[in-house]
């Protein structure tokens, strides 16, 4: 890095593009580590995936290889008062994944086994035991996988807590500022051009944490990684008397069901809606609404008393191998990415903290997430 750039006070040490859980956590720990940090988002912060997802803390649905990270992420959420400065309302509950057919039972045992091997405290229990844990479930279950370490968070509360923590840590928050281009600056670092702003935001290094929008931005840096955008449907009910106390799912992973403290039940699981992130706008597919809600009602029959209050769609991004992208994009260590983490809300804060640790000079093991692993595409981001 050139001395000229080093001495410019208006240049940020790190500019993070994408103000969701991963970007914001990276920003927070970098700022606490002494860096001058800017956090940029195309909308208000935490309005995309991080603000509207199901808030499930789950080891059942997390990819097996990410279990250790999910366990740490979950611990961070439950301990948010300590490191974020505010209790975001994370609740620890058991999690039950259920099987209703022979094929599902087989899948359930298989998925439980690989997760056990990765350190998840998951065991397969009998229908009787499952009903004892969760009396509200359909007695037609054949088997259930029980995990002591699940839970949930009222997602919408998280953004406010981060906003306060980031401001306290001195992070410059630049909201409603879509980034148009990112280009290497003369003398090192990057120019981040934002719509409706004459001057670019300048950073000695950048972190991309834009979830579904990563494909486009990685393209600017010479990476061609196809990123699939999932459009996940969520359904919330009006408040109900208590009908369940744990987080419920089914063997194939396509249901998440929980009841919040206020009595409303949230139905998710990754049933798809339609939409295009570049043109904007998403829409509910009626058959998928019906399928998702039928599944929920089948699992907890008392949901037949519920009123559907709202349906919405949230985005999730996925790489070709469904594994995260976390780490350096350039040999110069001046461009990084964090994202595409399956069930990323659970592990998100831990992933963000790991990247901050890496940028601050630590050496956490990020090798399984190396963004240059898509080999034919790798190293194109090298700066000349």
């Amino acid at each position, binding site marked *: 890095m050139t001395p000229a750039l080093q001495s410019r006070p208006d240049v940020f040490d790190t500019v993070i593009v994408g103000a969701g859980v991963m970007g914001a956590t990276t920003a927070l720990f970098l700022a606490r580590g002494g860096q001058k940090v800017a956090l940029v988002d195309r909308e*208000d912060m*935490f*309005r995309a995936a991080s*603000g509207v997802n199901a808030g499930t803390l789950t080891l059942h*649905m997390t*990819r*097996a290889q990410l279990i250790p990270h999910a366990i740490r992420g979950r611990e961070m959420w439950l301990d948010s008062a300590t490191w974020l400065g505010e209790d975001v309302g994370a609740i620890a509950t058991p999690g039950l994944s259920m099987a*209703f*057919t022979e094929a599902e039972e087989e*899948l359930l045992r*298989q*998925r439980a086994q*690989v997760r056990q091997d990765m350190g998840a405290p998951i065991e397969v229990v009998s229908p009787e035991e499952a009903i004892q844990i969760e009396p509200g479930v359909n007695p*037609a279950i054949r088997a259930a996988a029980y995990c002591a370490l699940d839970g949930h968070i009222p997602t*919408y*509360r998280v*953004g*406010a807590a981060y*906003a*306060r923590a980031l*401001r306290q840590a001195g992070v410059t*928050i630049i909201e409603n500022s879509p980034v148009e281009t990112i280009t290497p600056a003369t003398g090192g670092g990057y120019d981040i051009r934002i719509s409706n702003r004459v001057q670019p935001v300048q950073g000695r290094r950048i972190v991309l944490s834009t979830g579904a929008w990563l494909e486009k931005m990685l393209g600017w840096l010479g990476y061609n990684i196809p990123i699939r955008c999932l459009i996940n449907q969520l359904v919330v*009910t*009006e408040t109900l008397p208590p009908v369940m106390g744990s987080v419920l799912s*089914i*063997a*194939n*992973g*396509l249901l998440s069901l929980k009841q919040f403290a206020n009595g409303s039940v949230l139905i998710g699981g*990754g*049933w*798809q809606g339609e939409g295009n992130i570049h043109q904007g*706008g998403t*829409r*509910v597919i*009626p*058959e998928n*609404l*019906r*399928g998702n*809600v*039928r*599944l929920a*009602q*089948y699992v907890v029959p008392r*949901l*037949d*008393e*519920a*009123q*559907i*209050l*709202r*349906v*919405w769609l949230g985005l999730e991004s996925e790489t070709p191998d*469904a594994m995260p992208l976390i780490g350096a994009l350039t040999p110069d260590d001046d461009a990084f990415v964090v994202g595409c983490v*399956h069930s990323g809300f659970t592990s998100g804060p831990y992933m963000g903290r790991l990247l901050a640790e890496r940028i601050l000079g630590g050496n956490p093991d990020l090798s399984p997430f190396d963004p240059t692993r898509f080999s034919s595409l790798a190293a194109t981001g090298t700066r000349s």
Partner: protein
Amino acid sequence: MSNPDFSPVTVIGGGIAGTTSAIALARHGLPVTLIDEQPTAGGQIFRAPSPYARQTVPPNHEFSGGDALRHKLTASSVDVRFSTRAWGLSPTLALDLIGPDGIDQLPPSTVVVANGATERFLPFQGWTTPRITGLAGASILMRNGGTLPGQTVVVAGSGPLLFSVAHQVLELGGKVAAIVDAGHRSDWLRLGAMLSLDPARLTQATSWMLRLRKAGIPIHHRAHISAVQETETGLLLNVSEMDHPERRHVYASEAAACGYGLKPSTLITRTAGVQHRHDPVGGYLEPVTDLAGRTCRPDLYVTGDAAGIRGMAVARLRGLITAHAIAQDRSVISGETYETLTRAPLRQLRRLEAVSRRMLPLMNAGSAIPAHLQDETIVCRCERVKAATLRSAIKAGAEDLNQLKAWTRCGMGPCQGRMCEDSARGLLMAVCGKTSEDAGSFTARMPFFPLPLTAVTGTFAYSDIPLPKAAPL
């Protein structure tokens, strides 16, 4: 002229505008379906009275006008679907309905949105106490149910509905303790001067005012209810004057009816993605339309008060003109026929619109109230969110309505923000100096109202559920 297009048209809302439009569309030979949540046509103004109300409420224009409209509808070829509500809308304008036979979807068609207006409500300390209703709700209770909200009523808020409701209370033998109006007296006088353009309204207004004056009812202008307490016999209401905060008045009554004018119902038009704008005079969001109700979507028209509040007479004319415009856009009638058919209604419309626009500032006279809400006042009733909570979230950086909703739950409840949106926006504008455009609107989401879960699920077996393939291991 190209080939006429006789594909179906769906009218949402069986009030004056929607029913008039549906009948005229059917006369043009178009296949029309009319959807309304009530068991018969009429909407809010021409709502069919209960048998009890027919006996107790003196004959009036709303009863006779409504009966005539319903009679015409019955004689038409319009396919009616009553007791049916639209709860969702796809981008192609397929309509999700729920009616007496459960849920149903209408395939995409040209849609005429005629779902009218929503009453604007602004909170005050203690407003969630029982026996406080909206003005529109009180009016329906009296006119169509023949029942008083209480033997003595304080009528508060803004706009012409104040005097209509006060008059109805007297008509049913009740007492009006006071009329509390946020508007200037001089605005009313200016409106009165213009009413010569609308003789029907002038006659009605004169008879109301004479009767209210004869009853000796105190009227406070530039005033609002600032707090209410429940007592053993009813309510104790504090009334504050906006320009003289030190002047306070206290009234006791059994009930209070309070509303701050009307705003177009925009959940459906916002979901359909048509362009909207903030009307600074009306103080509300309205879809951008031309005189005939055309929007930026060629398959979606908006008519009646849903296109901007203009009242009953304009709603009828708009409904008629929209129907003719659709017939012309479909090449069912020629441009010349359109001109001939709309000449007289358009002339009338222009005359009446001038009067109607004068009503808007009177309806919007309470716009400064949200800025001064006491910290302890509940703004969002569904989620019990107080003004103090909103103020502190705004100061912490929630500078648009949707971020404010996420951070506080304001607007997340069953009413989907219909009650709290105006006051939350007013607080935002006051605390951080945003314009109403920048403050935004709550994102419209389906279902448009709480929907029984079983209406969606129906009868099914586990094997009927099309389970997607398993998530990656």
